[in-house]
């Protein structure tokens, strides 16, 4: 069901493609667009929420179709990890954190970044002012809740940078321990846990927020990935997918209410508890992360080599990778080559 037709019948598909290419050179674009819709599948890192609004909006508004893609969006979640599904060939495209993707590539899973959507770290540390924390130095000697794996890279680098010694508490799936003052500092995603804390009655002015990009530790997060072999097979589809996804995001930011309706619809379909206020916060923060106001120079969806090297360097320092993969192999700036 997930498999695209291209993969099930490679030879006939190739013939069909060749035929349409020949036909296309003699006919109108419209006919070609209709005639050459290619099947593809996509999975986001998590179950539907505004973190992925751009993809759902692009799908609902027919933007993928305009780019010649007949897309299937799979429902993400804790048991559907995009890297695994990509590796197994069960899905064509997926969103992955940059730090995860670099690690996986250095482990031999040849992922290619075709668009870096989230430019700025949403991961942050949050503390209560009431516990005496207003600046990084105040964290020294406190209890700090940290998630696992790549969620620890920036906080640890941050602690190192300020020479802080803390008691690390493994952070669970909620921020309740923090809310009940079981830890003094907690990890949070700006678009998610931060608002959860606010939604539990804590006012922003009672919190101190540490954004890693403010401390020279910016890690771009969600990017769109494809296996290298698939990319080589049909780079046009990959580039079209990236371009259509970016357009989906742009549409979502321009029409936030419509985008929220779409997201909430998918959340309901996935039986996920849907809270419009929370999703609105998430969409607004995604806009801040995808189009940071002070990064005017960077075009939406591009990965800067500087960011790439910073993340890879941090991974290497922590012994998570032994060598930095070549930037040019890892990232294909491809959306700009796409055509409708």
């Amino acid at each position, binding site marked *: 069901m997930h498999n695209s037709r291209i993969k099930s019948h490679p030879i006939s598909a190739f013939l069909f493609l060749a035929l349409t290419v020949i036909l296309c050179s003699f006919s109108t674009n419209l006919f070609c667009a209709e005639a050459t819709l290619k099947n593809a599948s996509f999975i986001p890192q998590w179950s539907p929420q505004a973190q992925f609004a751009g993809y759902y909006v692009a799908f609902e508004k027919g933007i993928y179709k305009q780019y010649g893609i007949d897309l299937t969006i799979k429902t993400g979640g804790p048991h559907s990890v995009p890297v695994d599904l990509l590796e197994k060939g069960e899905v064509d495209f997926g969103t992955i954190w940059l730090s995860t993707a670099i690690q996986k590539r250095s482990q031999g899973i040849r992922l290619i970044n075709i668009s870096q959507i989230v430019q700025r770290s949403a991961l942050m540390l949050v503390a209560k002012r009431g516990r005496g924390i207003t600046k990084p130095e105040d964290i020294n000697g406190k*209890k700090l809740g940290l998630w696992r794996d790549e969620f620890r890279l920036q906080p640890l680098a941050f602690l190192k940078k300020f020479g802080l010694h803390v008691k690390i508490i493994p952070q669970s799936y909620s921020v*309740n321990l923090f809310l009940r003052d*079981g830890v003094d500092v907690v990890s949070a995603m700006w678009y998610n846990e931060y608002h959860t804390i606010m939604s*539990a009655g804590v*006012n922003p002015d009672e919190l101190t927020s540490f954004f890693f990009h403010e401390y020279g530790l910016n890690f771009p997060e969600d990017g769109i990935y494809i296996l290298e072999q698939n990319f080589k097979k049909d780079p046009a589809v990959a580039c079209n997918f990236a371009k259509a996804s970016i357009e989906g995001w742009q549409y979502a930011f321009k029409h936030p209410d419509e985008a929220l309706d779409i997201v909430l619809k998918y959340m309901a379909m996935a039986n996920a508890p849907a809270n419009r206020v929370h999703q609105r916060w998430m969409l607004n923060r995604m806009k801040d992360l995808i189009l940071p106001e002070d990064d005017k120079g960077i075009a939406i969806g591009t990965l800067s080599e500087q960011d790439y090297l910073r993340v890879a360097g941090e991974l290497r320092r922590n012994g998570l990778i032994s060598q930095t993969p070549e930037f040019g192999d890892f990232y294909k700036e491809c959306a700009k080559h796409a055509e409708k």
Partner: protein
Amino acid sequence: MLKNKGIAFKLVLFFTLSSACIFAAIFTYNYFVSKRMIAKGIEENAGNLIMTTTNKIETMLSATQKVPENIAYFLENSTNDEQELFQVLYAIVEKNPEIYGAAIAFEPYAFRKDKEFFAPYFYKAYGAINFKYLDKHYNYFLWDWYQIPRELDQPQWIEPYFGEGGGILMSSYSVPFYKKVDGKRRVAGVIVVDISLESLRDIVSSIKILASGYGFLISKNGTFVTHPIKELIMNETIFTIAEAREDTKLRDVGRKMIKGEKGVAPMWVKSAVTGKSCWMAYMPIQSSGWSLGVLFPQDELMEDITNLNQIVLFLGITGLVLLAVAVVFIARSITGPLRHMAKATEHIGAGNFDIELPPVKTGDEVGKLSEAFSFMRESLKEYISELTEATASRERMESELKIAHDIQMGILPKKFPPYPERTEFDIYAMIKPAREIGGDFYDFFFVDDEQLCFVIADVSGKGIPAALFMALTKTLIKAKATMGLTTDKIISRVNEDLCIGNDMSMFVTIFCGMLNVKTGEVQYTNGGHNPPLLIKGNGDVSYFEMSGELLVGAMEEAQYTSRSVMLGRGDSLFLYTDGVTEAMNERNELFSDERLLRELSGFQDKNTEHLVSAVMQQIVEFTGSAPQSDDITMMMITYKGNQIS
């Protein structure tokens, strides 16, 4: 603008407005007082209701709390016998219907040195009691139910959640338990019991206030645990609702609720079910840190008082309308006759006295006015008819006087020069009566070919008697003169005739002269008249000396003498009545003999007409606007001699 409105309008406006103000004040006071009374009643009832409900919940939760707390106490002194733990856990789940599951979770390697994870868990499912170990895949160290009491080192109620495999709302109560290791009391693990919150939900949802009021329960995080709207449960917090409504006050109330305060929201809270404004009270569930909120729909609470106030308002407005009608009625009874009278006055002013007046119905001020008005009309009517009569008679008189004036003037010679063929003399005369008819007169006529008789006279008194007397005198003089008598004889005879039957004792001053046009000799008699002036051709002007003779008509025996004066060529005689010298100005000064003499001396132009006119002009200027008191008469004769010869 208001000034020009009618009395009725003003009365209605002021009475209705002031009554409305009084009514509004009473109504408002009543409204607020009754509202306060009701609010007080509600507050008491609400307090009782909330208290009862929270007590029920507390009882239920604290019963559950006792179970793991007892186990913790038991475990502290027990050996870690697996079998024993199983029996205890099984018993807990079996014996407590509200307990859905129970686990004893040990710290890493605290149960046995080789076991990182050890947590037996008994739970109800599919109608039986099941068992499993919570293992490393589940990694219970990361879960709130373990981590929170462990880190806080105290028993905790965990945020409610939906139980796996169904929509059953659950919560867990976790109690850390301790063991002595090397003489130190250390946390050895956490005992947790899961309870279904269904019965708690039943308790809260049994709160029914009037038609649409309801209760809800929020957790320590503000998350809805129970709410009539299912979608809100475990999905929204009171703070996300406040954010969606952009209601910072609601957020503040929520913060107070999760801080364990009790109270009443300071504002109206919108019902999530009906959207109605509600009065909201809240109270904490002490044991779990949750909070119960109850919404009392305002309009339903206030329904009775709203109904009462609507009736009061209706009665008040009806009363105001009736009052307005009554005022209109009273005002009409006053202004009706007034308007009628105003109209009648217009008619009466236009002379229509027969207009019907409003009947006098009442004895009040309007009735009295009406009566007085009627009396005034009758008086006016009478007066006007009298006045009309008097006016008519005066007009008749005036017209008769006018005729008399014309006749009187008609008998005086008015044509100048009177004898154009006679060149020997010039004569000019002028009369200006003070009223329509006067007592002055002048006359001149030839007695024979050479003798010109000229007369100027002034009858005592004025008006018709004087005029008649003047006419008589003039006729008598002319009659006597034409008989060829000398002037003294003429005056004597006239005196005699006038004295006969002069009951009225009227008299006349007469200057009568006889000019011989050939010789210039003037023979004259002065019967008590002002002395004339002689104007010599060389410009000398002088008064005749006083004759000392009596005025005419007063005494029958009076004697008159005749005198004579010779006029040379160019000499003139200026005759006048006392109206000239006694003409008075506004300061009551007389024109005077001296002034007359001066004026006559001053004129170069000796033409009779010009001179007389000039003197008249001077008199007019002198008197100014002062009324003329006496007839003014002047006559001037200039002798020129026989120029032909």
